[in-house]
């Protein structure tokens, strides 16, 4: 392997200082970033199914937020705005032709050694299942079961109807049940007639 080392003559130039501008007080991007980057990073990871792709998605989203920060910091809920931007960026990425060539791999990289074999087998199966979902269904699943957003909020974030959110969510759940028909906990819950999250909401 060969490292490319150079002795450039340039690369840094002395420059005079210029005028500054004052767009006014407001929430500081760096402080906001320090507080919220971790949370967005986790969501990005779950959306893409991969830490590095998630980091790429996050940085692209943050770069766009940074460029419009003077305007964005004045919106009512910056965190919700950022989450919507993240989801939109993810949607844009899966629509790009180059992204469609990417394949979901069989095995999930960087897995920890299982501490509880029974649970970890299930976890890996469920995580693999999430990673194999179509992008829109996966987005609904992440926003519903990780971010704990309501169907209305998900519809707003994704720019789709509540009915579509419901159908995407129920399809994912049905697929999961089909994938794990003999999972003891799911079976026990089904036999005991445990209410699903959808029926709980309808009851309310």
């Amino acid at each position, binding site marked *: *392997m060969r*490292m*490319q080392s*150079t002795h450039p003559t340039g690369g840094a130039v002395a420059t005079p200082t210029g005028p*500054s501008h004052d767009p006014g007080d407001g929430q500081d991007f760096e402080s906001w*970033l320090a507080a919220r980057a971790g949370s967005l990073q986790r969501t990005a990871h779950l959306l893409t199914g991969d830490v590095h792709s998630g980091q790429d998605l996050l940085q692209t989203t943050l770069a766009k937020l940074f460029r419009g920060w003077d305007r964005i910091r004045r919106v009512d809920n910056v965190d919700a705005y950022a989450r919507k931007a993240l989801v939109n960026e993810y949607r844009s990425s899966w629509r790009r032709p180059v992204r469609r060539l990417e394949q979901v791999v069989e095995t999930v990289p960087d897995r920890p050694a299982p501490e509880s074999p029974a649970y970890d087998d299930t976890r890996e199966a469920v995580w693999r299942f*999430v990673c194999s979902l179509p992008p829109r269904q996966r987005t609904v699943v992440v926003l519903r079961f990780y971010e704990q957003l309501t169907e209305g909020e998900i519809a707003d974030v994704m720019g789709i109807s509540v009915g579509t959110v419901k159908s995407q969510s129920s399809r994912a759940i049905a697929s999961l*049940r089909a994938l*794990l028909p003999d999972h003891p906990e799911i079976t026990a819950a089904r036999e005991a007639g445990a209410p699903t999250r959808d029926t709980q909401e309808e009851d309310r």
Partner: protein
Amino acid sequence: MTAEDLLTRTLLDVVETTDYPTTSTADVVTRSRTIRRRHRRTTLLVAAAAVLVLGGVSAAVVLDHHGSANLGPSSKPDPAAKLPDIPLGAAPKVGILSGDVYLTPQGERITSPAFRHAAAAAPTTGGVLVVSQSNWRHPRNDVSLVSDGATTPLGCGLPGFAIGPGDPVYWLFDNGCAGQGGGHLVEAGRNVAVHQGAPFPVATLDSGVVVNGPAWLPDPQKHRGSVRTLGRAAALVIAPDGTARRIPHLATAQTATRAGDLVAGLNQIDTSAVVVDASTGAVRWRAVAWTLSHFSASGKYVSGTQSVGPQTSPGVGDVVGVFDSASGRLVRSVVLPDMVVKSQAVWEGDDAVLVVAQDAAHQESILRIGVDGSVTRATKVLPPTQVRQYGFRLAATP
């Protein structure tokens, strides 16, 4: 447990057991520039195509005659680089983190759960100071002191320290972990300055602590006055008496050195990397398309990195550079083909910098890049399956 609960539990478990790389403002700025450049390039290409079409010239003909002719031997990519191919050198001379372990420059292994999600760790009076990032739903930064095998929580703060010749300086909120209201800059257990907001400590100078401040800070010396910052953020120096002074023209400070009283960071106007005089803010020099990391021990050099983002072409990789602090001359730049630099470039004295690097096979190691251009490994190579649990971090400035 319903299928819905199983999904929730799994997703929570996945994120709780994953170590995530830190995203800094510098990363965001670099990406922002990349996007802008890409947009410009696309616009130019579209414009060029339009000119070709309007001029009745077929782009296919142009490619036929000139495109293939340009593909000489120099365009053949290097073979994919792998970390195990790089020779192993001496152990790191700065503290590093791996999993629950803090490895001191002397080779002592100190274990604490606080190190697993550490954003920074540094020796201090009586032990090792560590700030851990935890709680995915309500992100917080727990500052703790690890001493004699015990981890003592000190409070909630910000994910970084100001490292100088003395003890590290860190920020602690007064009202616990709510993250609102005032707090203190703390050094060796004693408060060195009080402020509203949450100034992010970066480095120490003779005149005070260099911080990245919020939009404004109260000035205790002036009843009605305040240090009003310009733009999105501002770099400030907070003196021991609590007086805050803005460093003109600097939006964000990245590092500082007492030698020459210099501060490196991002320029307010175009967010390019600059080195300025700490007292006057006069720009000494500018490093276009670089992110500056740290000054060397004597202040003679300053390190920097260039991130090219996710790599799609063989032979392309992130770049580590060394600048002369006084003049801004690029003394050395080393391309790490097919590799991503995951950390800042941290100095070992004045001779070499260390970076955490990951190759195309997602293996990870710490590389030492000498000012003379040499590249060696400072640690073993972690296979991809161990990176999440035991990935390396440079302790003080990961």
